């Protein structure tokens, strides 16, 4: 019986606390259009979405610095870089076609094998590297990085006891659910930009400060009309890709993880005397 996975990037209590707090801020940054009260300070300013973009950039930087501090050695860095490169190379393949996002299976499988900390860093860095390579740095990038990071993190949290065929089923189901949720959250982050300032309120647009149920109804309508056509094919595609590739890719990643020997720290021991005698 082989090991399920290793933690290539170790999470200390400190980085775990930072992760939890950043998750809270991230959730607010995504869901603020639903939570904002009518008479609060940000309800009627068009700057509110941009404020959360800036906050999310800072939070991502802080959390990645916390994770890297003492938890990332050269092997983890190299593995992160190489897997992020594969993701960044895969990503343009799906551009244009509706719902074809070929990077998701990489986050899911790598997070599963290399641990939640690694999955978090991989999700964020893949999207960052891909944006730098394609010169696509924009206000959507922090949201994408954040959501993808949590997808990788979640893959590392799946129960370790599930093995064999069931493992593939669990991973495929997780991949589909995660990509649906990712689509929902990204849509939510874009939604406030449809706010109608001077014009009449569109029945799909975000109305700042409207009651929660009202805005949820509007958002559901917006999501159904604009992006569900992308999200459902993407979820199916991800699940299919995970099912097809899980066996060989998991095997390869586990072999690489074992060869990298993340869990056994390098030690410097004095050279034994026998060696020097035999060399005489």
């Amino acid at each position, binding site marked *: 019986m082989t090991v399920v996975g290793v933690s290539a990037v170790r999470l200390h209590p*400190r980085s775990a606390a*930072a992760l939890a*707090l950043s998750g*809270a*801020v991230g959730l*607010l940054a995504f869901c*603020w259009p639903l*939570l904002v*009260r009518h*008479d*609060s*300070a*940000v309800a009627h300013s068009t*700057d509110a979405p941009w404020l959360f973009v800036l906050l999310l950039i*800072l*939070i991502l*930087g*802080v959390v990645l*610095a916390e994770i*890297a*501090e*003492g938890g990332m*050695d*050269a092997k983890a*860095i*190299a*593995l*992160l*870089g*190489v897997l*992020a*490169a*594969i993701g960044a*190379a895969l990503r343009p393949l799906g551009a244009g076609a509706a719902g074809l996002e070929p990077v998701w299976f990489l986050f899911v499988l790598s997070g599963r094998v290399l641990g939640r900390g690694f999955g978090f*860093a991989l999700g964020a*860095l893949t999207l960052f*590297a891909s944006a*730098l390579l394609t*010169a*696509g*740095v924009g206000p959507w990038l922090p949201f994408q990085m954040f959501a993808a990071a949590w997808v990788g993190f979640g893959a590392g949290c799946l129960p370790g006891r599930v093995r064999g065929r069931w493992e593939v089923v669990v991973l495929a189901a997780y991949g589909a659910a995660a990509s649906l949720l990712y689509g929902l959250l990204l849509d939510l982050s874009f939604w406030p*930009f*449809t706010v*109608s*300032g*001077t*014009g*009449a309120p*569109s*029945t*799909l*647009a975000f109305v700042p400060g409207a009651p929660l149920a009202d805005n949820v109804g*509007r958002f559901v*309508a917006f999501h159904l*009309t604009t992006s569900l056509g992308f999200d459902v094919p993407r979820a199916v595609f991800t699940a299919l890709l995970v099912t*097809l590739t899980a066996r060989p*890719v998991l095997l*390869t*990643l586990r072999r690489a993880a074992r060869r*990298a020997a993340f869990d056994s720290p390098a030690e410097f021991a004095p050279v034994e005397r026998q060696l020097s005698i035999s060399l005489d």
Partner: protein
Amino acid sequence: MHPVPRHLHPGAWWLWAVGLATAASRTTNPVLLLLIAAVAGYMVAARRTNSPSSRAYVVFLRLGLVVIAIRVVLAGLFGAALPGHTLLTLPQVALPDWAPGVRIGGPITLESVAAAGYQGLRLAVMLCCIGAANALASPARLLRCVPGALYEVGVAVVVAMTFAPQVIATVSRVRAARRLRGRPNRGLRGIRGVAMPVLEGALERSLEVAASMDSRGYGRSGGLPQSTRWLTAAATLAGLLGVAAGSYGLLDSGTPGLLGLPAVALGVLLATAGLALGSRRTARTRYRPDRWLPPELLVVACGMAIAATFIAIGGTAALQPSVSPLQAPGLPLLASAGLLAALLPSWLSPSVPGLQR
């Protein structure tokens, strides 16, 4: 002014572009918005580099056109029409009770199309400004400016960016090898036969990279005194807590006012201090670092100037032309002067080296 050709600090271009985007966010006047897009485009034409990323402006421009189209179509199909000149009337669909206020079809007026078009244009022009930043600031240089606390992560991104083109080269090599052996390159089996060797090779390569990084001292961090580490942790966590509590306070009007923007500002300050303290653990020097010299500061000042101009005169009718009743947008003098100031960097900044014009 003819300074020696050199690359400007990427941060300067980003701040300039953010200033321009801030100005765009303050107006829905289509004349001003188109002028802002023109300023961004002129700067890209004057100061872009030879790298492939310099095509970003055109890509973002197309994306902006898509945004305008989406806004107009959504407003036409689902929006309540503003009173005015009816362009055409679509058949209306009745919806069930659980979707209150949702309306599909109905009359489309010139006024609502104009309102949606103005707002779409504003977003599109802001995208243009960001595209200009992407085209002007080279990503590799941007990556060199990450703070020391993000050193490991920065190295990983550098590895990724160097390695991504190699992955594509490896794919074509594996395909060629399979073709020579008479194996299929198409179909499910073909894809798998290509993908697995590429993945295996990449992971193999990563261990080699790690070994060579280890032997050269990459990915190592210098020891910090325990007290500094504790201070970093305390500042970072308190900062995150402040941001979390503050952003909740911003949304909920029931909380005391101190929990809103002041808490966010304090949290941002503490988190930044944590990053700065954490940067001390990597005691590294940079080879020919980008510096903040007078041209950089001038470029940033120009960006800030236009943002300040638009914020100062924001909210006036000149910046927010009326759509109902529909009126021709004017050309406010002060805002146009601010736009000319934003154009100054094309003379003030040093030209890009290695380009024949």
